[in-house]
């Protein structure tokens, strides 16, 4: 299957949707309208939950904010629904931005719980605010009119609803395939990697959150002007769960899954309403929610991945073309060989009473490979994390390229030109090799949200893709750029991390135990790769405890033991140093 086939399928789907109102019964059209309206929220949730990993139970509240906003503007104050749209979207996004700034720093389930909290609080607000009709709601909301043509019947508003859904899908897929979208997709699985690539994880989360809220607000606007009446009911916590369910059933992480999920849930709900009375007379209303929740629980127990990813497994893979040569991305000015690049001065890091790093000083000069070694528990990894900003030193100073970075955030340090790899490989296993490496270029490129969604970034995107391919080829992984990173063996995953780091065009490459868990052949290949990188004048700092690997490779060694610097020098000198032998092998008996 090629890109052309996908486009053909998309066009066929659009044609079918466009013809549907001429074939379907009025009831089915109304049902379709609801599906479309719910889809918008579910697509937002697919972005937020599936892509970004932020589970929100509160989207219904955003739908409500926009619906009440437009009802207030149009029904209570007599302005145009279009003004209601603007007001609704702006208000919702503002509310989302404020909530996001406050809550998005929360970790894991704390964040989801906060969505329950504000979802409930906003939900209660609708029924209790004077001037919004309390529990009676707001009625006689005017229909949307385009020019003088009012969209009154369900077949008329159908085109507006599904037009918006189609546009949102198109823009959404564009966005996910752009620089910002890749950053969003990298969010899932932890901030450490994202920050180490020079990406401000909090900002990306906030953007994702506001986009999801904006989609919910579109849905709310359409809902208010389609049903022409609103009350607090459709925006309560229960509906928030239902939206989450739609996006999960469709396949979390898949935008199309949002539409599929909305359709499945809505149709299922509809048929449950039809058939349950046959099973249990008089109790259908109660049984409906029971049956529904039970189905959802069964789904979560047995088919968590959702419909779209499940179906996609049986479709032929989309064949992609290798990235074509493109103008290179701008490069950083590299320091002259031998120049002082990194200086650590009296670094100290304590964890409670334990001094993990104690008064350590050393320097890294441009163009060399320096190894920091030491037995287990020597403080190597702590030192490493202090250099890359994952931890702060309690005392001392770190200066990189003449600028102190002691107090900088991880993403700032990354942007300054330090690229790192991880002891426990951190890749995005469900992204391709190419995309994983493209993540590395984030700090070098500048395509924003709108440019990404409207594909105004063709040149930069082409350069990025080509750069990523070049880095893959440089490390010897260029033959299968579209393979998923999770399918690689560990050795190659480590190499892939190096390619990603190289894509950031770093001045200093820091590797955290790159040889750990590798087989001998893999280690040899890794050493060979690092040598070629040094030949390209790249400075490398390795934290490692594999002596053999280090001795044959590096120019200089710093030895740590119990958090303090033991000695420093050329490999041969270190090898014969008695203190080092004692630290590694114990005292001479």
């Amino acid at each position: 299957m090629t890109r052309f086939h996908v486009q053909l399928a998309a066009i066929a789907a659009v044609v079918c949707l466009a013809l549907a109102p001429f074939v379907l019964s009025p009831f089915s059209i109304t049902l379709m309208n609801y599906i479309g309206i719910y889809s918008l929220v579910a697509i937002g949730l697919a972005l937020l939950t599936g892509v970004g990993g932020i589970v929100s139970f509160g989207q219904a509240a955003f739908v409500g904010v926009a619906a009440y906003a437009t009802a207030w503007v149009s029904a209570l104050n007599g302005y145009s629904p279009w003004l209601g749209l603007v007001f609704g979207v702006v208000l919702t996004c503002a509310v989302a931005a404020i909530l996001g700034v406050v809550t998005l720093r929360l970790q894991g389930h704390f964040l989801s719980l906060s969505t329950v909290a504000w979802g409930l609080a906003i939900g209660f607000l609708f029924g209790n605010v004077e001037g919004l009709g309390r529990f009676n709601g707001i009625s006689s909301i005017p229909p949307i009119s385009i020019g003088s043509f009012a969209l009154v019947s369900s077949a008329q508003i159908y085109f507006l609803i599904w037009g918006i859904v189609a546009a949102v899908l198109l823009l959404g897929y564009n966005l996910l395939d752009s620089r910002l979208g890749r950053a969003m997709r990298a969010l899932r699985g932890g901030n450490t990697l994202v920050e180490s690539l020079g990406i401000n994880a909090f900002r990306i989360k906030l953007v994702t959150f506001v986009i999801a809220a904006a989609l919910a607000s579109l849905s709310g606007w359409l809902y208010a002007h389609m049903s022409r009446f609103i009350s607090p009911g459709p925006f309560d916590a229960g509906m928030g769960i239902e939206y989450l369910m739609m996006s999960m059933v469709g396949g979390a992480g898949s935008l199309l899954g949002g539409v599929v999920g909305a359709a499945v849930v809505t149709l299922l709900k509809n048929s449950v309403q039809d058939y349950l009375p046959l099973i249990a007379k008089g109790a259908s209303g109660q049984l409906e929610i029971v049956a529904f929740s039970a189905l959802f629980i069964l789904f979560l127990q047995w088919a968590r991945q959702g419909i779209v990813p499940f179906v996609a497994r049986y479709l032929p893979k989309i064949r992609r073309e290798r990235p074509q040569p493109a103008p290179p991305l701008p490069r950083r000015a590299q320091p002259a060989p031998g120049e002082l690049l990194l200086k650590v001065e009296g670094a100290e890091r304590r964890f409670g009473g334990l001094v993990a790093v104690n008064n350590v000083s050393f320097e890294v000069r441009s163009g060399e490979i320096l190894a920091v070694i030491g037995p287990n528990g020597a403080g190597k990894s702590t030192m490493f994390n202090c250099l890359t900003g994952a931890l702060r030193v309690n005392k001392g100073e770190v200066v990189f390229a003449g600028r102190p970075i002691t107090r900088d955030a991880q993403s700032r340090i990354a942007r300054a030109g330090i690229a790192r790899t991880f002891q426990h490989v951190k890749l995005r296993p469900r992204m391709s090799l190419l995309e994983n490496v493209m993540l590395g270029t984030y700090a070098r490129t500048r395509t924003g949200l709108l440019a990404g969604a409207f594909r105004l970034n063709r040149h930069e995107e082409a350069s990025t893709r080509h750069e990523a391919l070049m880095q893959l080829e440089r490390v010897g992984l260029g033959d299968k750029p579209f393979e998923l990173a999770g399918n690689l063996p560990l050795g190659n995953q480590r190499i892939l991390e190096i390619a990603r780091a190289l894509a950031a065009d770093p001045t200093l490459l820091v590797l955290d135990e790159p040889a750990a868990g590798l087989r001998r052949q893999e280690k040899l290949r890794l050493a060979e790769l690092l040598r070629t990188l040094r030949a390209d004048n790249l400075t490398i700092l390795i934290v490692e405890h594999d002596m053999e690997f280090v001795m044959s490779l590096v120019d200089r060694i710093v030895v740590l033991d119990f958090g303090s610097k033991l000695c420093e020098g050329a490999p041969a000198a270190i090898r014969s140093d008695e203190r080092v032998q004692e630290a590694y092998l114990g005292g001479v008996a």
Partner: protein
Amino acid sequence: MTSDIAAILGIDGIATGAVYALVAIGTVLIFTVTRVIFIPFGDIAAFTALTLAALDAKRFPGTGSLVVVLACLATLIEILSLLRAGELRLLPRALLFYLVLPLAVVGAAWLTMRIEPPLVVRLVLALMLITPIAPLLDRIVFRPIADGSVLLLLTVSVALHYALVGLGLLFFGPEGVRTEPLTSFSTEFAGVLVSGQTMLIVIAALLFSGLLYLFFDFTLVGKSLRATAVNRTGSRLMGIRPARAGTIAYLLGSLMAGVSGILIAPVNTVFYDSGFLIGLKAFVGAIVGGMTSYPGAAIGAVGVGILESFASFESSALKDVIVFSLLIPILIWRSLASLHSEEEIEE
């Protein structure tokens, strides 16, 4: 607001808070042992109140049918999983725990009903009927995904709550109930009238928290539960079965929720869906304790009760908005407080 009103509100708040505290402690208990944020605890509390009301009215409560349905489901699932694991020799045991015991409880309740028992017996019956529900739900709903993420478990838990609300309407009907006060005693305390019911609530909350403390610190089962909470794999290696620990936690937790339901029934009218707000407010309290500390959860829950009491005096319509908005700063505080440990875990 005069000091008199403040005192009345304060006492009222403490009583409500004590009820939340019982549920909150149960929530923390379940969370630490199984990592499930068991939202339906409030429903368990509400169902207890409804069960007691039905018993008072000499009707056989819907809880009985609910337990029977759940027991059959759980047995079915247990048999299927035993079949798949090829461990049919465990079948008698499974039948005993998942079918015979719950049915025996329901049968005993049904028989006792005939003789029009006194209040104390009715209280015991209500608690007996309610305690099998959560462990059975655990078997049916959570055991198959026990190793899932906290978020998955939370999502399932929220869905389960909605299923229970539907079942509640089905088994108990839409009418609200308010049971007879357990005592008509009342006394004056610092110039404010304090009802016996209020005192009973506070005493029960203190008593049960105390018992739980003793259980955890001085019994082997309690210690095994704590071990499971700290590290499931580790405790499994020590011969503790996390599934069994989970069942015990659910039993204890639902007992506490049941007691709180009995205590709240004479004070507030309880509907089939009242549980959600009770559960969530208890949960706000539990979060104050970081979902790990029992005293923290109790103090937090009492705080929520007092806040709610004052908030409803200021603006009764917005009291829930106020309570849940407050959760956000609390979450931020907790998240900041737990950041240190995560930083160190990464080492």
